[in-house]
């Protein structure tokens, strides 16, 4: 809260400290909701600019949840823009994805990329409200109440969305089982 108070008083350095602390979480949420790295980066930047400009509106509660709400809305805006103006793929290479991980072998890095692509493909197949609930709960680890705060939905709606999303993801991942690394295949016996 001290950094937030300093940022309110115009100390941009204090706000940038908050940015560095939360940018990975915001960027990963945007990437999982949008599915592409470059639009995710744009939405992340818009999130922090909007957060700085509206810092006076944050009074109490979880700053992270408030930030995630702004990020979610930025992603929804981008998805609405896509619906209005569908763009053709020009085969431009996106920003190369890099993972937050310690040094690992090339084989593990390939398995990680394969797992990430499979999960993303299944997330992309979900309705946006279920996708948001699943990413916030199962990928980012927020609890029901935080998700209700972020999405503005009731607690019962959040539970229902999470349940539906998990069921769809389970079915999707099972159908794409051959794409998953051996350690993550659903037909394996529980370790």
């Amino acid at each position, binding site marked *: 809260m001290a950094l937030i108070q300093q940022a309110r008083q115009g100390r*941009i350095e204090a706000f940038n400290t908050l940015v560095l602390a939360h940018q990975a979480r915001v960027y990963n949420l945007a990437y999982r909701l949008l599915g592409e790295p470059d639009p995710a980066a744009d939405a992340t*930047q818009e999130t922090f600019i909007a957060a700085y400009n509206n810092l006076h509106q944050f009074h109490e509660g979880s700053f992270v949840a408030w930030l995630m709400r702004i990020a979610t809305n930025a992603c929804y805006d981008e998805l609405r823009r896509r619906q209005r103006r569908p763009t053709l793929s020009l085969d431009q290479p996106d920003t190369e994805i890099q*993972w937050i991980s310690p040094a690992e072998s090339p084989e593990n890095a390939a398995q990680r990329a394969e797992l990430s692509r499979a999960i993303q493909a299944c997330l992309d197949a979900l309705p946006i409200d279920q996708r948001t609930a699943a990413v916030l709960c199962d990928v980012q680890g927020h609890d029901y109440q935080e998700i209700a705060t972020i999405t503005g939905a009731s607690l019962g709606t959040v539970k229902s969305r999470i*349940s539906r999303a998990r069921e769809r993801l389970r079915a999707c991942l099972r159908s794409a089982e051959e794409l998953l690394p051996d350690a993550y295949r659903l037909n394996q016996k529980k370790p």
Partner: protein
Amino acid sequence: MSLRMFGLLPTDADLLSAYLDNALPASERAALERRLTADPNLRTALDELQRTLVILRAAPQLAPPRDFTLDPARYGRSPATLRASRTNARVWLRWSAAIAAIALIALVGVIVRGINNSRQSTSSGAIAIVPTGMLLTSSTTPLTISTNSLAAKRTESPTLPGVIPSTVMSPTLVQKLAASPALPVAPAVSTFRALPATQNTQPNVLQATVAPLIDAQSTSAQATKAPPTQAPLAAAAAPPDGQSAAAQSAGAQPFAPATMSSAATPPAARLYAATLSATANTADSANNNAVAIDSPLQALWSLIRRLLNLLGSGLPSG
């Protein structure tokens, strides 16, 4: 494998999901655990759901492609200051719009007033358009004031020597002259140039106004045997050394209607013209304000008329 394959209901899926999140009340949790022990399909569904969550929670975290810190040069001001500047900009925009609207209304008012004045002058005569206190000289210049058509028709006959342009007279004097049977009808002059009020005290103004009048009348004056007062009057009207005409004409004989009516000759008219011009020079100082106010309006109206004429508009001429 869907819930139907497990023989489960959607409510079971909600229960299993909440169970894995440890979000069930104790009673419901105990009831579900009893069912899990008894129902192998429900147990299998729970296992697959749990592994799904393991996969999702193992989703690799992406490293941000760059830092998203804000540029201090651009965002260095506090959010409150930024809000205040945006608010100020909105206030300025509103005030600017209001001022622009008022200016537009004022412009429309000036145009409407000009049109009304033009119509009034068309019906009342040429003298009505002459601003009070404005000294006019005969010339063709960009800024012109045309007399109306009725006055022009009235003066289609050749201008008599010694005739005084009606535009240099005040309305009351014109009425007096009109009442005098000895004076000719005041002609309308085609064009005049409005001089700035500051030039009224220059001697060449009076010279330009009266001297041509006298030059044009020289032959007729000789024919009618002008009285001895003509010589000093001409000298006063056209000073050779460029001295102030107002100062020289200050000693001229004042206007006397009785004398005018009895003289009934062009020299009397010249006397009137010189006297009137001299009087105008001294009396215009009291009317300069009127000139200063009326001239911009007339200049604006003249400009608008020219523009409208260029566009082929059919506004009445005034």
